[in-house]
């Protein structure tokens, strides 16, 4: 029942103010920074354990750096990878704020992406400024529907959102497999599950395409940043956002203050689902141009890491997403030029979450004097 991660005053004052106040800089910046460094150091040990020398491990990290920020192309790749992570991270973060744990990002991305791809290929002849928003809206609505189910079940029956969202992930995965083989979605003349190609009028424009067509960073990044701004405004500047946070801090107190728990749970899960749906749509309309089985490629789960590292603060989420995007993009380079598998990135991400969620490990390791507060968001199945 104890919710120790109540938003502190500093967090409520927004990201910029938070940077300037010294109250929270340790938990807000120092711990995440040390968590990333420690995880990267363990990564070196791991590379060396698989039979490489220290020099080779250093080469691998040089490639990682080169692939994430070493050139315009690398930065473009980093931002391309960060785009869905921002949206998936926001999806998890807003649910965290209301005391809900949305593990359903994967499923919501898949359903949202499928809606977006359908609108993307089935409607033709619309100008881009109508078609593209329509496809994104479809993606948002698809994700919101997939988020509505755990929200309403949580509110009306008490079914734990973690169980329901896990199950919905797998249901969505199977649904995508099924639909990609139907005439409605499958590309003509193909036997493998691939959807039709999205019309050009529904594709997210490349932002730097005028410089070099290989720079993949697309309009979705702007959409994601706008979403971060909107969520920040919603959470910290509106009554609805206050209700979200109040319910997250103490649902009983919120209920006695006259807030509707049902409304908050349903609304927050729909927004969370919609954001994940946008993440899926961004991948479809901006990167892939078509749907394939499991196109969410674990981004929904990475969103959890992003939200934790970003301390569920929208701008913190953006920063964490750019970092993880860099790891993803650099990991590709690392695999190609240093022959170190990209799965190392998943290990590093998992270690980062451990250290961020259990700051006591970091404070003990570096002998910091900061009181460490462990992250406690969900409340177990029972309550």
């Amino acid at each position, binding site marked *: *029942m*104890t919710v120790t991660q109540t938003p502190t005053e500093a967090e409520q004052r927004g990201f910029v103010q938070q940077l300037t106040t010294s109250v929270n800089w340790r938990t807000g910046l120092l711990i995440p920074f040390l968590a990333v460094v420690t995880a990267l150091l363990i990564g070196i040990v*791991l590379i060396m354990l*698989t*039979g490489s020398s220290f020099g080779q491990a250093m080469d691998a990290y040089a490639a990682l750096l080169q692939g994430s920020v070493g050139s315009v192309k690398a930065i473009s790749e980093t931002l391309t990878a960060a785009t869905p992570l921002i949206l998936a991270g926001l999806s998890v973060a807003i649910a965290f704020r209301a005391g809900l*744990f949305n*593990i359903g990002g994967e499923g919501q991305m898949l359903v949202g992406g499928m809606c977006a791809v359908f609108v993307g290929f089935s409607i033709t002849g619309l100008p881009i400024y109508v078609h593209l928003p329509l496809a994104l809206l479809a993606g948002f609505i698809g994700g919101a529907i997939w988020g509505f*189910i755990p929200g309403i*079940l949580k509110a009306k*029956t*008490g*079914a*734990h959102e*973690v*169980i*329901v969202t*896990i*199950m*919905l992930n*797998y*249901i969505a995965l*199977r*649904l995508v*497999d*099924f639909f990609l*083989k139907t005439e409605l979605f499958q590309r003509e003349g193909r036997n493998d599950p691939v959807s039709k190609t999205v019309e050009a009028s529904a594709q997210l424009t490349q932002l730097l395409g005028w410089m070099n067509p290989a720079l993949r960073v697309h309009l979705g990044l702007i959409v994601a940043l706008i979403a971060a701004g909107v969520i920040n405004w919603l959470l910290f500047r509106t009554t609805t956002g206050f209700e979200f946070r109040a319910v997250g801090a103490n649902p009983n107190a919120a209920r006695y203050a006259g807030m509707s728990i049902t409304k908050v749970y349903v609304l927050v899960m729909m927004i969370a689902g919609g954001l994940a749906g946008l993440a899926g749509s961004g991948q479809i309309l901006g990167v892939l141009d078509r749907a394939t089985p499991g196109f969410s490629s674990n981004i929904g*789960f990475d969103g*959890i*890491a992003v939200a*934790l590292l970003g301390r569920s603060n929208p701008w913190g989420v953006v920063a964490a997403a750019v970092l993880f995007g860099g790891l993803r993009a650099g990991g590709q380079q690392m695999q190609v030029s240093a022959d*170190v*598998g990209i*799965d*190392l*990135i*998943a*290990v590093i*991400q*998992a*270690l980062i*979450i*451990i250290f961020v*969620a*259990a700051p*006591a*490990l970091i404070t003990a390791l570096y002998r910091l004097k900061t009181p460490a507060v*462990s*992250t*406690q*968001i*969900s*409340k*177990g*199945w*029972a*309550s």
Partner: protein
Amino acid sequence: MNQASAPAPRESYELTGKRTKELTKRQIRKARISGVVLLLLSGLVMLVFVPAVSGVSTFGLSTPDDAIQLDSLAVPSAGSLWVLSSVLAFLGATQFFRGFQGKTTIILGISFGVFAIALMVWAASGQEFSLISMLVATVARSTPIALGALSGILCERSGVVNIGIEGMLLGGAFTGVVMGSLLGGWIGLLSATLTGGVLALLLAVLAVKFRVDQIIIGVVINILVLGLTSFLTAQVLVKKPELNDAPIFAAVKIPILGDIPIIGPMFFDQTIIVYGMFILIGSVTYLLFRTRWGLRTRAVGENPKAADSLGVSVAKVRYLAVIYGGMVGGFAGAWFTLGSVGRFDENMTGGRGFIGLAAMIFGAWNPIGAFLAALIFGFSESLQQKFALLDIPIPSEFLAMAPYLVTIVVVAGVVGRVRPPAADGQPYEKQ
């Protein structure tokens, strides 16, 4: 002070009064819903299956090398479907109008069994359907699910949520194959078990000592193990394939019992991992409900404060239960490699840990219940396999979805609610 405390009792009285009324209403609604579902299933059989069948459905009951050969069972397809759909209609109508009250769960179980038979009669219409091979596959496929569920039960009965079952399975599968290739199957099995234990130790330390959110740790364990095993597969196993070539445990036929028709091949002609599952289900049931250790574990999971005040060390009980749970999960992981193919592939558990989680919930945190749930899920998995082979025009994706849908229905309490241990997922701070 007086003003604040005076209305409180009245309010709570009103609340309880309202709740009992609501509960009976809810029970009626539940009976109505499940009745309608059964009637719909009956309609499905009558309107979709019956027109599609002709001739007889043949079910093979023996494999060629069985000691006692049974003749194949041949039933007229249409006739038996009519009978089955009438049974479903009768049960559904009774449930709708009168309700089976206390027996609802059993009746629903029987009804879904009847529907499964109808499904098979329909699929086997005009061809031979080897029922026995499917039943054997059901038991084999339910093994990792049942063990995964058991792993979850051990953790959660002590009050620690374990959604890292998937990671424990995958970790066990990986070390099982590597150590198995190096030092033989038994050492592989032991290493798999220990790997699960080590992962569980991570869960226990972070959950009990550092009081980190248990669901986050579970997610982390899944990501960490998936990343680590995929990384090591790409870096090491691909370059040294001799490390990814473990001996497979052969099926061990138990004398006499293994010769019983149907039952024999299903339960007494399996690998030692399957036998291990039976032994573990039985022994954990006994340990949890009949021993002092079990009572303490359950007490800590229900009310750690009370257990603590009686001198039970909450931390110690949770550490032990979680580590045992992890070891069961690692043992289950060995099924994927040492128990079936002898080699490791990236993410080869494919969500079975989460189906195990589903089986745990469906089985109401009880080992026997979880085993029965795992059998149902294993059945749906092997039915899926069979339908793909027989080229049945039913999308296998929908069968694959069944366990997940069932779990949502169960946690939402549409047909009877299951109750998790009261302190499940809550860190305990000694005062």
